[in-house]
């Protein structure tokens, strides 16, 4: 059986309108565009049932990695990503969701005028249809989502409000967690879902993840903090630095980072930055 997710030498660059052509270090870009390399060859394998954590300093490319996996456009992407052996990069974002991929966004957008429960129903029905399953009965669906929101400490009134509209930072994160729990994906990517959450909420998220954890479901948890990882015990921890995974290890690595920070790793790998060719 192939791993659930396999990322091979993934690079991503972004084209920026070059206003200062003279200063551009990329002589070959002829249309006045400069391109910035954000991911520089990321390889990663997540077997079924494992929890992997990705840590790394601000701007190292964690969210870029997560959003390219979810299907965000606008990057020039090279490399290969297989999801259960299938070419993920060839799929539309919605098709990736239908296959069982979910991203809890670092900055979830608000959808004024789209009521929370309606949003979830649309998502659940769309996924059921795409998989050729029967759509869940509306009443059962509402009941199930309400029960989940109680478990996760999400105010039920949030389901009546517009999605993320006027939500506090923490409420948005809880709402991402509720969607994750309702949609039951095969691979859940959590992009700093623990940031901005109070201590109780972090515990609720950890317990929620723990409940969903099984032999088949995997998690890619992007975080800056040890706290969530203490609760959910990752199988592997990866450090992303300047668009590259520079170290992978077990959960000890996370404790080490907490103690030492990224300085030693930056020293070790910092030299590469200057040497990088476009």
């Amino acid at each position, binding site marked *: 059986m192939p791993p659930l997710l396999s990322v091979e030498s993934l690079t991503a660059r972004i084209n920026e309108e070059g206003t200062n052509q003279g200063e551009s270090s990329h002589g070959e870009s002829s249309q006045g565009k400069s391109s910035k390399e954000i991911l520089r060859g990321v390889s990663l394998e997540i077997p079924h049932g494992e929890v992997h954590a990705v840590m790394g300093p601000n701007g190292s490319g964690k969210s870029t990695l997560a959003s390219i996996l979810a299907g965000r456009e606008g990057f020039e992407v090279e490399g290969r990503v297989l999801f259960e052996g299938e070419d993920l990069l060839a799929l539309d974002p919605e098709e990736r969701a239908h296959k069982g991929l979910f991203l809890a966004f670092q900055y979830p957008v608000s*959808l004024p005028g789209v009521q929370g429960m309606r949003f979830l129903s649309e998502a659940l029905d769309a996924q059921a249809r795409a998989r050729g399953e029967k759509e869940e009965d509306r009443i059962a669906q509402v009941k199930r989502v309400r029960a989940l929101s109680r478990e996760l400490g999400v105010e039920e009134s949030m389901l009546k409000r517009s999605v993320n509209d006027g939500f506090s930072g923490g409420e948005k994160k809880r709402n991402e967690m509720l969607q994750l729990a309702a949609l039951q994906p095969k691979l859940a990517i959590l992009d700093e879902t623990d940031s901005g959450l109070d201590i109780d909420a972090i515990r609720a998220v950890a317990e929620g993840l723990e409940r969903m954890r099984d032999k088949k479901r995997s998690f890619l948890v992007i975080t800056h903090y040890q706290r969530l990882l203490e609760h959910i015990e990752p199988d592997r921890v990866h450090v992303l630095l300047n668009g590259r995974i520079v170290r992978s290890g077990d959960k000890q690595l996370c404790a080490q980072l907490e103690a030492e920070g990224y300085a030693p790793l930056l020293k070790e790998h910092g030299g590469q930055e200057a040497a990088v060719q476009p």
Partner: protein
Amino acid sequence: MLTESASSPLLLPDLPAGLLRDKGDARDLFLQHGLPRRGSVAAERWKYTPLNKMAGMRLHLPHEDKAWKERVERTIASKQDEIARFPDAALLLFVDGKLQAHERTLATTPYAGLPRVTASEPLAALNVGSRCEAWRVVLNEDTPFLHVLFLATSSEEERLQPPSLPLLQTRLRIEAQSGSTSLCQTFCDSSACWNNDVIEIEVAEEARLEHVVLQERGRGSCAFSHTTVRVAEKASYAHISALKGEGLTRQEVSVALEGEEASCKLHGAYRIKGKGHIDNDTEIFHNRARCVSDALYKGVVEDAGRGVFHGKIFVAQDAQETRGYQMSRALLLSERAHAYHKPELEIYADDVICSHGSTVGALDEEQLLYLRSRGVVRARAEAILLEAFVNEALRCERKECAQALQAHLAQ
């Protein structure tokens, strides 16, 4: 006093004989100024809705012969769902501009009063200067809800060469005397026609009127309407419209807040396809102190459509503590789509809070990605976002009207 410039010739449609009255101010005004043209008094107000192509357009009145009566019967029979849409409402059913008897028909009286019109309102002048049916209706606690349904028959004449459009005109005077009342106007005709209606509304002291308009225009169809409203002390008036289609619509709403603490809300949403053109032209006169007005128009423009909003707020010198808000937003779904906004504030009092704003943009890619990442396919995600966008301007108190408004603009 503005004078007509000689820079462009008078533009007039080819009107049917016997349409215009023999005399009268409105008739004279129309014949003197014609349709809006470059340099005319009306040019500014009609800047984005040029009617040059209407000059010489052939218009006819339905012949009320036996064949027409049969067409009316057939039309009524085929529109039973539409007629029964608001079973709790009293009904005024117009077919080709003629009032038809129905079991829910409200007591009406012919109305001979003629609203005053100005040179910048040429279509209203045409209506008032014409012979057409005019009716007066009173709304109050006993008759709180009225449905005014406009139907049109289709006839052979539409296929005439050169083409000729039926000109369908009515005049209504609505008096909201007391209590909370609702008026819902629906235009439901698949055949091509030229509607040109004038409505005069009075909202008496402390009365409330919610005025809902649902309209769809097909290609080649035009709809002009001119609504003037006087709102008395502590009374409130709301005009909420849902307009769509590929035709030409110009909806003029002019509200005078004539008593202290009067309020009005002008909300509307529209969806334009093909080469459709929808123009919302609003005027709010704050003539007394402590009045509140709120205008919100939201449009979705596809293909080569054009959306226009003109919003004027006038605040008289002693209209202190005035609050006036105005916002217009358009989403353009194609490169050929256009939207024009023209705010106009004229303020003579000093204790006033007035705001206006407008936005034009495309659907938000981040919001689309969010929905799609949850499995909602792109087309559905777009529909959800568009619906949410327009629905903000379609809220109303009467439930069945709110549902009708939202359903009208849902895909």
